[in-house]
């Protein structure tokens, strides 16, 4: 019995099983595992692609979205504090996008009723770039941009 099992392992049965699992889509190293994570949206490189992945139309420019406590110049691109506030009624979601990062979308926040439309976080920026705050309110999308200058990039390491 034991010897048999060892034979199977030796002849590479384990490898075959792994390959099969991979082929069947059970094992996808590095792929999205968390439920509810929109992989398509995080893979995009342009605003148009992102909007398509989110299932929205081109966003309207809005002056009701403001960057609070967000620097003009970030010394360290690895840690850029960004706070986005929306004064648009029925704000449902806020997303932060960095134009010149390898993938634009940095983070997306869904706000249930009762949560204030203001979110603070920290993102990485590879270089000086426009940062977009995308707001979904009442099913429509709005956007505001701010340029943040980066002295030291946060992506190349």
């Amino acid at each position: 019995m034991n010897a048999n099992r060892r034979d199977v392992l030796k002849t590479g049965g384990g490898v075959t099983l792994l390959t099969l699992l991979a082929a069947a889509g059970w094992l996808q190293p590095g792929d999205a595992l968390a439920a509810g994570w929109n992989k398509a949206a995080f893979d995009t490189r342009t605003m148009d692609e992102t909007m398509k992945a989110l299932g929205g139309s081109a966003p309207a420019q809005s002056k009701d979205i403001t960057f609070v406590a967000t620097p003009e110049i970030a010394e360290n691109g690895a840690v850029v504090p960004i706070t986005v506030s929306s004064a648009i009624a029925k704000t449902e979601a806020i997303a932060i996008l960095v134009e010149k990062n390898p993938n634009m979308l940095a983070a997306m926040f869904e706000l249930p009723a009762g949560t204030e439309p203001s979110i603070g976080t920290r993102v990485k920026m590879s270089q000086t770039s426009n940062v977009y705050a995308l707001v979904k309110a009442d099913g429509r999308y709005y956007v505001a941009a701010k340029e943040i200058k980066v002295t030291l990039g946060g992506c190349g390491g």
Partner: protein
Amino acid sequence: MAEPTKIRANVAGDSTEVKVLMNHEMETGQRKDAQGKTIPAWFIQTVTATHNGKTVLSAQCGPAVSKNPFLAFKFKGGAKGDKVQISWVDNKGDKRTDEATVA
């Protein structure tokens, strides 16, 4: 495995202000190690915040969120002694849930 999330929740007027600091590498998958090999991406993908069991924020993060992600948000209501819970899941399937009491 992962270290605890630091959560601070304070009543501010008629809402509760929550500040969260999660402990995570947030590796982008873009960096290379000394041998020139790409360091695989490793980052938090989803974060859920609940107040007494009701979801008050759900976030999706990409690798562009900084190492040891920080989050600040406010929700209406909340009283001293209420529970605020933060859970996250990363792209390797690791999870962590931490709880704090509103002060």
